[in-house]
Every structure is written in structure tokens, then in C-alpha cells.
């Protein structure tokens, strides 16, 4: 055999390791999906755009300029297009995160650690709000509280109580905070209840033995142990809330309460994308600061996972508070799930808005044939070829995205866990987190900018279904990578090595050992990707072409046109599809889990 340099040899040997090859491949994919678009975004903020010629006679498309930065940060418009929206974004996101943390934490504690009645039922319903599209509550809120301000019919509130809700209750800060808190609290609920379940009561009992009061134990032992979970929940909620578009738009726009996310949308629609991109950069910066603070605060401390065999869970008797606690939680879930859905349903059954009499009830918006006099002659959603087409698109997109992202999640998990502590693994793990930092609406904008031209051998992807898949996969990657990594952690390296010893090549090991063992654990990653794609609006609103319309973009369009019946009916359709899809996925996945 001929002599090669040691470096070449070492490299050659490294490349024989599947996690290295896979890791490199994934880093390249990630670069293409995230880093390149991000650089394009940064580039575009500092370069004259075509559309800028409307704003400046000296605009020279393609040349460098600071114009956009000056416009955003230091012009007469700055207050309205940047500083005030920024303030609104921070104020709403902070309040939402704190409220959601409180609600979710309380619910988790009540469900896991107390003798509250119907705990299991509450636990089942607790996560539903997150499954619903985030703006479901916003639309329901409008159906209820809407006053004359935005035109159209006034809300049910006025009809029932004869009182017109004031603007501050109907629109802006208060409703945005309430609806989104109710939407996001499941994050905290899931994380904290998970942590509470794995927390051994012995830790608390040892405090009790020392004579500490219950409150003291809660404050000095339980709470600090829950802190990492709480903070993670806070971060998760904050970064989602700050990038969400639907709710602040529906509830904020009528009173000109704009957030950065809605400003980004209007900037793009107004074809001043560079201004939008700067807003996106600011959002990314905020997310990064928050995550940095998180790491600073939690430091090396990781999640409490004091798992073991003899794990005992202590139940705190609530005494007289049992039923009040239950009522409170039931009310919370009722307000977050059932009331809004019923409101939406009612709305879809009303022939004319604002007429709450029984005679006004109709199924026209569901199954009615086209009538010229109603809604520009569009037929009910279950007969409407456009909507059915959009539904098909939504289902197709969600399933494909769930499969690809889930699979990539497992692969990333594999490369990261197997390559533990290598630089490649670190890059991959952190890189897969990047899409998380880029707000959905900005992400869509970047893809619009990047993929409307041909890139090297790639044809222009704009207008293709493939592009939607791409953007949804990229955006969902952080979650599936997380669940891929954690489920991979459960699979001891030796299980794969035993396969190597048996002579199985990588593909055989992956198919016969890794995949079966991680699939159940990664199921949540699949389902999450399915759900979030199914209700995705912010991410794809800019990339949708008529052929690739989805249900969510149809809803948005109907809301804008003021056809709340159609909008609400489609939302309900989405809810049905999401819940059905999740049920199906759990059934399919559940079978594997039982072995």
C-alpha cells in the first residue's frame, strides 16, 4: 500500500465515520437553508432595492447604501415604523411570557402535584390551545368584542349585554396579551409538568423532615428546581410571541397598534423589503439576547431529571381549595378552547353578520351553493374547489414537512449525539437552532428574496410547492432536532456498536436499530412539525402563489375581506384536520411504542 501523509490518513479515517459524513452533509444543508438566506437578508438591508426607486431618485439598485438603516432608525418615520412597534413587541411579548408562565406553571403543579379533581381530564385538554392556530383566539375575540371601530357587524358582546366594548378591551395590548397567553401557556405546562414528574418528592420531603413549612418548601426547594424549566418556557414563549404575526395583526391593526412583526409584514406588502429585513434583524437580535441571558442565568444547570426507579410523587392535599382550583382550570381551558371554537362555529352559521336571531342561522357557508348575493358568490367551503384545493395543499404540505423534518431531526440527533463533543457536533447542534432565532415572517421574506432567482444549478423555486416544503422544514428544524437529539440520547451508543460488531453497515444499523428505537421518541417532533405547518401563516404568507394556497392563507384573505363566516369556517376545518392528524399519528406511533 502506498504511503500517504498522516493528515490525509486521519481525514480518510474520519470520513469513514458515519456521524462525521452525516454531520458534514447536514451542516451543508443547514447552511443552504439558513445561513445563506440570512446573509442574503443582511446583504439586502444595505443595498438599494428595485422598489426603492419610488423613494429616492438617487436609488441605484444593487449599489451599497445606508438609506434603509437611516429610514428605520433616524428619520421622521422611525417612531412609527420602528421605535413604537419595538416597544409594543417587547411589552406584549414580556407580558405574554410572564402570564403564560404563571398559568402554565400553576396548571402543571395542580395536575402533577395536588389532589385536584379530574386531573387527567384537565391534563388532556391542557395542551389543546397550542394545537389551535394562534390567531383562532384572536378571531373569536373579535367575534365577541368587536365594536364599530373596524366596521362590519359588532360583536356578540354588544348583542348580549347591549354594551359596546371600549377600544382598549376590543383591540390592542390587552386582547393581544390575553389571547396569546392562553395560546402559549401549554409550553410552560408541558415543560414544568415534565420537570415536576421527574422530580423526586424525596427532595421535598427531606425539607419537610427538617420542619420547613409547605410554602417554604415550595419556595426554597421546588421552585429553584423548576427554575430551568420555567426559564426555558419563558424563552420559548417569548421568542415565539415576538415573531408572531396573525394575532397582533388582527387585534392590533384596527387601533394601529403595530408590533415589529406586523410592521415587517406591512413593509413587505408595501414593497420596502429592506426596511422589513432590518426589523427582522432587530427581532433576531432580541431573540439572541434573551437566549444569551438564559444561558447566563441557568449556566451549567440543566433540566432536573432526577429519574430513577423508586420515584415517588407527593400529592399536596388542597383541602377546601380542591373544587375552586378545578373550576379555575376548567374555566381557563374553557376560555382558551371551547368558548372560542363555539364562537367561531356560531359565526359560521350566521347568514348575515350581526343578526343573532335563530332565523339567521344557515349552513350556507359550509355547504351552500354559490349565490351571487352572498360573499361575492362563493360557495360554502365544503363545495368550494379553491378551498378544497387549499385543504389538500395544507394536508400534503404538513405531512411531507412532518416526515422530512422528523427524519432530519433523527439524523441530526444521530450526528450530534454520536459525535458528542466534537466541533462538528457543536456546530450542528447550534446551527440547527438558528432558524429559531429568525422570526417566521422574516424567514418567509428571506426565502422570497433568495429563491425567486435561480441559484447555481437550482432553478428558481418561487411558486413551487417544493419551496414551501423547504421553508417549513427549515423553520421546524429546531424542534425536531431537539426531539431527535433527546430521543437519540436514550439510545445507548452500544446498541449501535453491537450492530457494527454484527457487521451491519450504517444503513442497516440505521434502519434496523436506530430508527425503530428513536421513532417513538421522535414522534412528538413529527407531530409538532405537522401541527405547526398545518396552522402556519406567518412563515408562508409571502411565498404562497395561487396554486400553492393553503387553508391558513385562505383564512387570512377572508379575514381581510371581512368575510368572517368563511374565515372562521376554515379555521374550524384546520382544527379538525390538526386534531385528526395528531390522533392518527399517535395511533400509528403508539403501536410501535407498545413493544
Amino acid at each position: 500500500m502506498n504511503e500517504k501523509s498522516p493528515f490525509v490518513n486521519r481525514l480518510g479515517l474520519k470520513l469513514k465515520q458515519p456521524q462525521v459524513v452525516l454531520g458534514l452533509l447536514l451542516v451543508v444543508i443547514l447552511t443552504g437553508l439558513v445561513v445563506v438566506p440570512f446573509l442574503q437578508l443582511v446583504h439586502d438591508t444595505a443595498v438599494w432595492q428595485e422598489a426603492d426607486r419610488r423613494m429616492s431618485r438617487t436609488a441605484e439598485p444593487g449599489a451599497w447604501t445606508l438609506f434603509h438603516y437611516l429610514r428605520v432608525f433616524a428619520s421622521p418615520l422611525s417612531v412609527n415604523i420602528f421605535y413604537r412597534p419595538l416597544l409594543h413587541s417587547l411589552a406584549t411579548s414580556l407580558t405574554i411570557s410572564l402570564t403564560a408562565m404563571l398559568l402554565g406553571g400553576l396548571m402543571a403543579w395542580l395536575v402533577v402535584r395536588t389532589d385536584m379533581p379530574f386531573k387527567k381530564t384537565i391534563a388532556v385538554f391542557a395542551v389543546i390551545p397550542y394545537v389551535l392556530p394562534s390567531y383562532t383566539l384572536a378571531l373569536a375575540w373579535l367575534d365577541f368584542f368587536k365594536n364599530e371601530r373596524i366596521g362590519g357587524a359588532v360583536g356578540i358582546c354588544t348583542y348580549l349585554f347591549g354594551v359596546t366594548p371600549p377600544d382598549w378591551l376590543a383591540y390592542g395590548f390587552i386582547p393581544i396579551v390575553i389571547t396569546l397567553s392562553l395560546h402559549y401557556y401549554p409550553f410552560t405546562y408541558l415543560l414544568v409538568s415534565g420537570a415536576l414528574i421527574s422530580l423526586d418528592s424525596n427532595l421535598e420531603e427531606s425539607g419537610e423532615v427538617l420542619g420547613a413549612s409547605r410554602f417554604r418548601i415550595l419556595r426554597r426547594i421546588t421552585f429553584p428546581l423548576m427554575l430551568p424549566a420555567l426559564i426555558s418556557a419563558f424563552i420559548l414563549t417569548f421568542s415565539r410571541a415576538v415573531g408572531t404575526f396573525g394575532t397582533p395583526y388582527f387585534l392590533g391593526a384596527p387601533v394601529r397598534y403595530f408590533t415589529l412583526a406586523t410592521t415587517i409584514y406591512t413593509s413587505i406588502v408595501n414593497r420596502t423589503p429592506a426596511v422589513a429585513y432590518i426589523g427582522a434583524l432587530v427581532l433576531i437580535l432580541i431573540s439572541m439576547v434573551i437566549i444569551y441571558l438564559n444561558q447566563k442565568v441557568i449556566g451549567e444547570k440543566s433540566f432536573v431529571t432526577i429519574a430513577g426507579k423508586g420515584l415517588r410523587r407527593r400529592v399536596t392535599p388542597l383541602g377546601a381549595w380542591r373544587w375552586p382550583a378545578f373550576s379555575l382550570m376548567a374555566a381557563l381551558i374553557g376560555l382558551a378552547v371551547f368558548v372560542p371554537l363555539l364562537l367561531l362555529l356560531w359565526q359560521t352559521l350566521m347568514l348575515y353578520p350581526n343578526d343573532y336571531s335563530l332565523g339567521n342561522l344557515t349552513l350556507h357557508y359550509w355547504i351552500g351553493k354559490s349565490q351571487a348575493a352572498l360573499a361575492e358568490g362563493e360557495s360554502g367551503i365544503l363545495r368550494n374547489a379553491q378551498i378544497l384545493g387549499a385543504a389538500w395543499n395544507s394536508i400534503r404540505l404538513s405531512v411531507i414537512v412532518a416526515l422530512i423534518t422528523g427524519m432530519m431531526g433523527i439524523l441530526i440527533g444521530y450526528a450530534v449525539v454520536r459525535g458528542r463533543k466534537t466541533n462538528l457536533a457543536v456546530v450542528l447542534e447550534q446551527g440547527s437552532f438558528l432558524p429559531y432565532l429568525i422570526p417566521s415572517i422574516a424567514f418567509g421574506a428571506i426565502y422570497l428574496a433568495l429563491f425567486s432567482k435561480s441559484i447555481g444549478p437550482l432553478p428558481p423555486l418561487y411558486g413551487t410547492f417544493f419551496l414551501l416544503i423547504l421553508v417549513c422544514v427549515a423553520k421546524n428544524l429546531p424542534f425536531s432536532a431537539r426531539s431527535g437529539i433527546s430521543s437519540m440520547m436514550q439510545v445507548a451508543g452500544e446498541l449501535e456498536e453491537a450492530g457494527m460488531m454484527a457487521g451491519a453497515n450504517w444503513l442497516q444499523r440505521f434502519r434496523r436499530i436506530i430508527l425503530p428505537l428513536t421513532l417513538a421518541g421522535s414522534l412528538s417532533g413529527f407531530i409538532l412539525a405537522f401541527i405547526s405547518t398545518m396552522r402556519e401563516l406567518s412563515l408562508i404568507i409571502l411565498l404562497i402563489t395561487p396554486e400553492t394556497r393553503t387553508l391558513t392563507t385562505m383564512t387570512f384573505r377572508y379575514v381581510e375581506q371581512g368575510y368572517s363566516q368563511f374565515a372562521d369556517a376554515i379555521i374550524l376545518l384546520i382544527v379538525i384536520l390538526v386534531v385528526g392528524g395528531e390522533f392518527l399519528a399517535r395511533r400509528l406511533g403508539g403501536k410501535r411504542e407498545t413493544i
Partner: protein
Amino acid sequence: MAMIEIEGLTKRFGGVTAVDRLTLAVEAGEFLTLLGPSGCGKTTVLRMIAGLEVPDAGEIRIGGKTVFSATRGLFVSPGKRGVGLVFQSYALWPHMTVRQNVAFGLEIRKVEPARMQKDVSEALAYMHLEGMENRYPQQMSGGQQQRVALARMLVAGPEVFLMDEPLSNLDAKLRIEMRVEIKRLHREAKATTVYVTHDQTEALTLSSRVAVMEEGRLVQATPPREIYRRPANLFVADFIGSPTINLIPGKIVQKNGRTFFEGEALSLPTPALAAHVGAEVTAAVRPEEIRIETGESGDAVSGEVYAVLPAGSETIVQVRRKGRIFNVRVMGETSLNIGEIVCMQFIPEAVIFFQGDQGNRIDTGQE
């Protein structure tokens, strides 16, 4: 030619050198144990032999065939090395039944079904696992899982068995049972075996040769008896034996024309060390090489009984002398009481000396 030849094997993890220029040959049919405290690199060596870890330097040959060479950039994948490995955790696939676990390797090698059926059944029978074919690993006891792991290794008929602390997860009774099982396996299969453990009893009872490792380096690779009797250095002396060997620092001096070891708690005549006069040394005595007598006697030294630890067939007596505790092994029971003054009799020939600065054994030409 040796079955496994390892030359200059080195492995670094980040800045830490786990295995440092290790050279070792394992003869065909030998049962070699890699022994050492945790973190000494013994498992890494085993994994490099198996092909689960890529060394940074060196060469490995198995059965005369080079399976790894850093200079030639050669790396043979684990499945093609003709070795079988039993993992510490057994690494049974939880989603497969016992039969599927054992058959997996044969399936991969595309063995024809009838043959596979037969081989698997034989391997299971050999490990006394009849009737458990369709169970999942989680439904079995630790000992049974261990048997499945062994069966899985056996079925492929490897020339070399590699075992990574296979008994460490079992309780004491099962451990002894499986020890016998492994010994039987080795004898009947006549396969070269490399066995990793940090349990010296296991090492001493099973192996034909024990290789002691310390911080990535091979310290000594000799038959068990020699490891115990003639440890290469202080580390080995201290590591092997329970209770641990008695170590007394001191100096070699010349008094009246005779050579003595002068320790702070002990003084011994050491005619064989005449060449080392003036050297700082450490004297080492196994607990069973000290005799306890209740009365005064010639060259015995006195001490106070500090603790008496009966262990059935033997009793460990701890004697304090000048602030130093001596472990003494006494056969059977003893009537000594704590606080009692006793005499310790040392057998000069059984005392081993180590250089004070390097810790290497001073060869006195004895034994």
C-alpha cells in the same frame, strides 16, 4: 505468531491521551485481562481492537491481518475483524426478541435461513436459554440478558472474544456463576479472549495473563500470580490485593556492616539491597505475609490492635504502630481484642522494595 498484536497504539480525546503508545501481544487461545482503575484506558484499548474507536497512531493486527494502521491509513470495520464483543451493558436491542437479537448478525451476513435457525438454536441452547426465544430483553433478569449477549457473540463464531466488564452489572452470586460460565466458554471455544475489568479478583481468577494499565500506559502484563507476587511498581502493588498491601516508606542504611531497611515504623535487615544503600525506598508487605503473635519475640515489632474485621474464612486485623496502620490477614477467627498489644512478625523474603523516586520494584533476585 501472536493472535493479536498491538504496536504503539495511541488514542487522544481532545487534549487527554487515553492510551499512550501501547504495545502488547496476545497469544492464540490466551485469556488476557486488561486491568486498571477506571479511566486508565483499558476499555479504549478493547474498543480499538474491536474497531469501534479509531486510534490516532499505531497498528493493530489480528490473526496476522492488519486491521488498523495509522501510517498506511488502513482501517478494517468491526464486522470484518472476526471478533466478537460483549458490552458492559449487554447492548441487547430492546425492540428485538432474544431470537432476533441473536440472529441479527447472521441475517446481516446473509446466512441461509435453515442454517441460521440451527446456529441460533444451538447458541441459545449452549447458553441455557431454551424457551426464552420470544422474550424481549426487558422481560429477563440481568443474568439471562448476559447469556443472550454471550450467545449473540458466540453465534457468529469469532476467533477473538472481547469482553468489556461483562459482569459488573450483576449481583455477587450471579457474578460467580457467570465467571464459571465464561471460563467454560473460553475453554471450550478455545477463542483468544481479551477481557476488561477493574475487579482484580475477576482478573486473577479468570486470566492466563493480566495486563495492568495506568493512565493509558501498560505497566505490567504477566500471569496473575506474578502480578500479585512481583508487581512491577508501586502502582500495581497497591492496586492488586485486598486488603491493600502495606506500604512503609523508608531508607536503606548500613549499620555495623549489615544492610538494613529503616522505616519510620519498621526496621528490617535486607542483605540483598546492599547495592542500594542510601536510597529512599518503600517497603511493601502483603497482609498475609505478616504474622501476629501475642507475646514479645526477637525481631518482631509491637503494635496495638486497632480493628478486627472478621470475614468468615479469614480475619483482617488492623494493627497500629507509630501512627501507621498495618493490615494483617489471619486465617480463621481470632480472639484478639481492640487495644491489645501484639507483636508483628515480618518474613524478610516476602517484603518487596520499590524505588522511592520512581516506584519501580527493586529486583532482589528472589523468587
